[in-house]
C-alpha cells in the first residue's frame, strides 16, 4: 500500500504548540512562555515517525505539568506522527526572562502584571517594586504578598485605582 508521506517540519510543530496553553494562564501558549526547550524528529526505516519534545516547567511543583504534557501530545499527534513523546527536564532551566515580549503584553491584558526582566541578576526586594498596575497602569503599587493563588503569582495592591492585582513573579 502506498501512502503519501507528507514531510512534517519542525516549523509545523512549533505552530501546533502555539495551540497549547498553560491552563492557569489560558491566554499564553507554551511557546510564548518559553517552556519548550527542544524538538527532535526521527523516522525509522519502516517509516515510523516519532517526535520528541522537551519542556521545562515554570515552577518545579507546578501542578499543571501533567495537563500540559497531555495537551502537547494531543496537539502534535494531529500532525500524524506514530509517536509523540514529551519529556520534562531541567537541562535548560525556566526563568521568567524566557517569556517572549508579546506574552508579557498578553499577560497584562489578562490582568496579570508581567515579570520584570532579571537578566541573570540576583532577585532583590527592589526588583519586586516598580510594577505597573495592569488595570490603570500606575506604578504606585506595592507588594502585599510574594505568594498568591498559584505558585507563579504574587499579590500586589495599586494605590492609584485602589485595587488588588496579581503579578507573575520574576524567577
Amino acid at each position: 500500500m502506498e501512502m503519501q508521506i507528507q514531510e512534517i517540519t519542525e516549523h509545523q510543530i512549533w505552530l501546533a504548540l502555539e495551540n497549547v496553553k498553560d491552563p492557569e494562564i489560558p491566554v499564553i501558549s507554551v511557546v510564548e512562555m518559553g517552556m519548550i526547550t527542544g524538538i527532535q524528529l526521527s523516522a525509522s526505516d519502516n517509516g515510523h515517525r516519532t517526535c520528541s519534545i522537551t519542556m521545562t516547567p515554570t515552577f518545579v511543583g507546578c501542578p499543571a505539568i501533567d495537563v500540559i504534557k497531555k495537551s502537547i501530545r494531543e496537539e502534535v499527534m494531529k500532525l500524524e506522527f506514530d509517536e509523540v513523546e514529551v519529556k520534562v527536564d531541567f537541562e535548560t532551566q525556566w526563568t521568567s526572562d524566557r517569556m517572549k515580549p508579546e506574552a508579557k503584553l498578553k499577560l497584562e491584558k489578562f490582568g496579570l502584571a508581567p515579570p520584570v526582566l532579571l537578566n541573570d541578576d540576583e532577585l532583590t526586594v527592589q526588583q519586586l517594586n516598580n510594577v505597573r498596575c495592569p488595570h490603570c497602569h500606575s506604578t504606585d503599587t506595592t507588594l502585599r504578598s510574594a505568594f498568591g493563588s498559584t505558585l507563579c503569582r504574587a499579590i500586589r495592591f495599586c494605590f492609584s485605582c485602589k485595587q488588588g492585582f496579581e503579578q507573575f513573579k520574576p524567577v
Partner: protein
Amino acid sequence: MSNALKDLLYKMADDALIIGHRNSEWTGIGPMLEEDLAFSSMAQDKIGHAQALYKILNEVLGEADADTLAFKREEKQFKCCHFVEQPIGEYDFSIVRQFLFDHAELIRYDILTQSSFQPLAQLAKKVKGEIKYHVMHADTFVKQLGNGTEESKARIQSSLNYAWHLALGIFEKSEFENDLIAENIFVGEDELKKRWLEKIIPVMESANLKVPATDEIKIVYGGRKGFHSEYLKPLLDEMCEVVRTDIDAEW
C-alpha cells in the same frame, strides 16, 4: 559513589517532603490570609522539590518511583532531620523554622549548582530561584516580629532558642561526607553550616535577636540515620492514610 549520592538525595527529598507537609498544615488556619497563602504555596513548592529529587533517585539511581518513595516507606527509611518533623506549633515557631531551614536550603542548592552530578546541578539552578522567595518571606517576618511589640519580640526569641539545637541537626554528617567532597558532588555539611551561620547571624542581629549559644551536646541528631522524633510516625500515618487504604490502587 551511588550510595553517597542516594544518601544525599534522600535526606534532601525527605526534608522537603516533611517540611512541605508541615507547611500545608497552615492551610485554612493561617493568622492572616496572606500567610495562609504563603505557607500553602511554600508547601506546594517543597513537595514539588521533593518529587523532583525522588525522580532523580528513580530515573538516574534506580530507586522506586516518587509516589512509592513518598508514601510507601517505613519511618526508619526516612532520612529527614528532627527539625522538619516538629509540629507547626504557634506561628512564631513556624516562621523561625522557615527562617533557619530555608536559609540552609538556599545555600545548599546554591552550592549544588556547581555539583559534578549534573541532574542535581540542573535542578538546583531551578529550585534556588524558588527558595529565594521563601527566604525573603522568612526574613521579612523575622525582622518585623523581632522589631515589633514586647510580646512578638519575646515570642520570636523564645522560639529561636527552642529551635536552635534542632536546626543545627540539619547538618548531621553522613558516612559518605568525604566521598561527596572528593567527587565534587557537594562541599559537605560542615562547610554548609559555616556559610549558613554567616548568612543568618546578620539577619538575626537586624531583627534584634540574640544568637543562641551552641551546646554541642544538645544538637539533635539521628534523623539522617533513620532515628526519628516522636512526631514523624503520626505525620506519616496521616500523610499516607489514603494510600494505605488500598495500596495498589491506580490513581
